[in-house]
């Protein structure tokens, strides 16, 4: 085992500048503070010893060979928009940014695929697909994420109900292994039974197994029409009970989100954004895509009848860009609104079987009451991924630490009891690491370690994330 690692020396820096370029290698105080953490500084602030912007797979390979030989930890970094404290230099060493590998290499209409370097932004991938009349469905909300980051974290997002998650849209990955060797997992094929499905294992591995240098993505034909329904309810239970009814119908909604009026009030109060309906105390927002207006209108009518049957007050239709924006811009602003409404927050990202959502949400509220802390649930009702936001308000540092730990443990226990998982889309990183082994059990944890060591026997690639090997 490699730990403890070697510190970088002046000689090492000279070498790294030699295999890259001096202006792309920053040391110590030259490194911007934003690279010390991701979007959740709560999950750890760590200074890299050196920050390098690579421009080719050959450079990454050379850096990894060097790090492997010299026993230096390396953390690959995309746009830094993660929510798990994943892309940080927990044990110092090299932060290796892939953001300059930012070319879309090919959009292949014949194969319905796109090949891109990891530093291309998600928004650029989406736009390049649309330009060629195709569609890249994964939309985790954060459009400034890098495609490499979304692959390495298996980003989800609300469209998962109909289209699935990032893993469903990756055909192949070219990557640099911890010893510097360049390999390709799978290829631009639709099915593959050749050996272990390592490509799927690498997706979501949070940069602990390899560094992606080129990714081939699957695209689909673009849906021509997209409407959304806003469905107000008098109570949350009826609201959530509607979800399985929608899923068991002839429809395949693209997204089913739920949101409580309390959160809409927060967004209005903090950000001045007003939701176009005030009649409910809880809402479902259902997105329906299709190829023709007639098809989408018909599906909206079917969905509306199901919702009314299930006790909705009414069903409101968003059938224009402006109407869709008036709803989705508010759904997109909830995290910002909550952050502004409190002094600190902790997010629990559990996913439970869809039939258990109501039970989980009810339990979360009871846990909140028991610990006298404000909890708001919001999220992807269509796939069971419930973001449970714990708000700090006026708790002291110590109270906050103790309370969040207790609350999280109870929320995770509840998720497990209901057949759920600890994280649905944000990942483990550093932030959820301490809860993982308890959740998955020691045998599973041992398997994780074995997998990590099969790729990275020196434990130099993003160490201390997902699994701790000491």
């Amino acid at each position: 085992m490699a730990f403890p690692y070697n510190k970088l020396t002046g000689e090492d820096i000279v070498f790294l500048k030699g295999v890259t370029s001096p202006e792309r290698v920053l040391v110590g105080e030259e490194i911007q503070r934003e690279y010390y953490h991701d979007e959740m500084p709560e999950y750890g602030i760590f200074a890299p010893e050196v920050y390098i912007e690579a421009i080719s797979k050959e450079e990454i390979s050379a850096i990894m060979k060097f790090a492997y030989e010299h026993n230096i930890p390396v953390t690959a970094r995309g746009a830094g928009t993660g929510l798990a404290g994943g892309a940080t230099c927990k044990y110092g060493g090299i932060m290796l940014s892939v953001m300059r590998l930012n070319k879309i290499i090919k959009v292949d209409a014949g194969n319905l695929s796109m090949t891109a370097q990891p530093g291309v932004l998600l928004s650029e991938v989406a736009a390049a697909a649309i330009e060629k009349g195709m569609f890249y469905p994964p939309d985790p909300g954060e459009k400034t994420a890098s495609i490499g980051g979304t692959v390495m974290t298996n980003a989800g997002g609300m469209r998962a109900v109909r289209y699935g998650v990032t893993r469903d849209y990756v055909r192949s990955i070219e990557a640099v292994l911890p010893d510097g060797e360049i390999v390709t997992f799978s290829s631009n094929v639709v099915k593959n039974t050749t050996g272990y499905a390592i490509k799927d294992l690498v997706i979501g591995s949070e940069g602990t197994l390899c560094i992606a240098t080129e990714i081939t993505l699957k695209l689909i034909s673009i849906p021509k029409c997209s409407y959304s329904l806003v469905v107000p309810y008098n109570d949350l239970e009826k609201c959530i009970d509607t979800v399985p009814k929608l899923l068991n119908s002839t429809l395949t909604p693209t997204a089913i989100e739920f949101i409580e009026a309390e959160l809409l009030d927060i967004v209005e109060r903090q950000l001045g954004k007003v939701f176009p309906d005030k009649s409910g105390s809880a809402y479902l927002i259902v997105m329906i895509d299709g190829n023709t207006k007639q098809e989408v209108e018909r599906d909206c009518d079917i969905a509306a009848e199901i919702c009314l049957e299930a006790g909705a007050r009414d069903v409101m239709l968003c059938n224009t860009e402006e109407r869709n924006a008036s709803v989705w811009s508010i759904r997109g602003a909830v995290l910002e609104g909550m952050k502004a409404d409190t002094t600190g927050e902790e997010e629990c990202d559990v996913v439970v079987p869809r039939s258990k959502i109501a039970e989980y949400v009810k339990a979360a509220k009871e846990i909140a009451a028991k610990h006298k802390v404000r909890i708001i649930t919001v999220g992807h009702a269509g796939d069971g991924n419930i973001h449970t936001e714990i708000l700090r308000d006026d708790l002291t540092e110590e109270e906050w630490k103790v309370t969040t730990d207790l609350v999280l443990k109870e929320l995770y226990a509840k998720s497990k009891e209901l057949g759920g998982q600890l994280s649905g889309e944000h990942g483990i990183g550093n932030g959820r690491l301490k809860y993982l082994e308890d959740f998955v059990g020691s045998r599973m944890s041992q398997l994780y370690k074995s997998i990590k060591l099969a790729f990275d026997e020196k434990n130099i690639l993003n160490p201390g994330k997902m699994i701790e090997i000491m």
Partner: protein
Amino acid sequence: MRIIVCMKQVPATMEVEVDPQNGILKRMGSETKTNPYDLFSLETALRIRDKVGGTVTVLTMGPAQAEDMMRDAYSMGADDAVILSDKKFAGADVLATSYTLAQGIRLLGGADLVICGKQTTDGDTAQVGPAIAEHLGLPHTAWVKEVCYVDSGKVQVRQDLVSVSQVSEMQYPCLITVDKDIHVPRLPSYRLKKLSEGRKVRIITYKDLPDQDLSRYGLVGSPTQVERIFPPEAAQERVQLEGDSEQKTEQLFGLLVAKKLV
């Protein structure tokens, strides 16, 4: 209280073809939606009705397919919908359009309050509302940002002019045009859509109108001559600033000074 809201169907997308011969938008066949500004005016009308009582009638000039828009207005809560539709109205500019709408309002027996959107997203003149008021001899206030007070006899509104905010009070009958974001427009309701399925959308043609002078309507009644119409050139220049927030702020300030924007 009787409120009339003037509305217009506009192309749903930004990619619209223009007839090079006469400079008129090719509307047939393309997807349409309600002019977004008119949803602000309808929302304003519905709120006033819900507060003061009365009815909201939506009025448009356009082809028969404008019925979709009127049904959408029913789903938002409008009480009555009327389309001024006749080939003789086609090709109208601001003057002929506003005259035709004013004639429609006269035919409907007038209104206590007429509400228009500030402008449309296709024509963009922001003149039709005030022109209707002039044809009808009504006091009017354009670009209204807020309805400060309203009862069954008068309305007090605030308009944001370039350098001042002005609050005006008008006795009925009068006309206002409302700016965007005066309220967030409500969404069409499925329940109201079902309830209004059997309800008629009335069609009014040229022969129904009080003024039968053909020279006031359509292309003939339009003194505006469009010489050429073309999409503006999209100039996109992107500058990426590097450094920490302080350095970036300084660079940004430098750029703004260099362009004489500050």
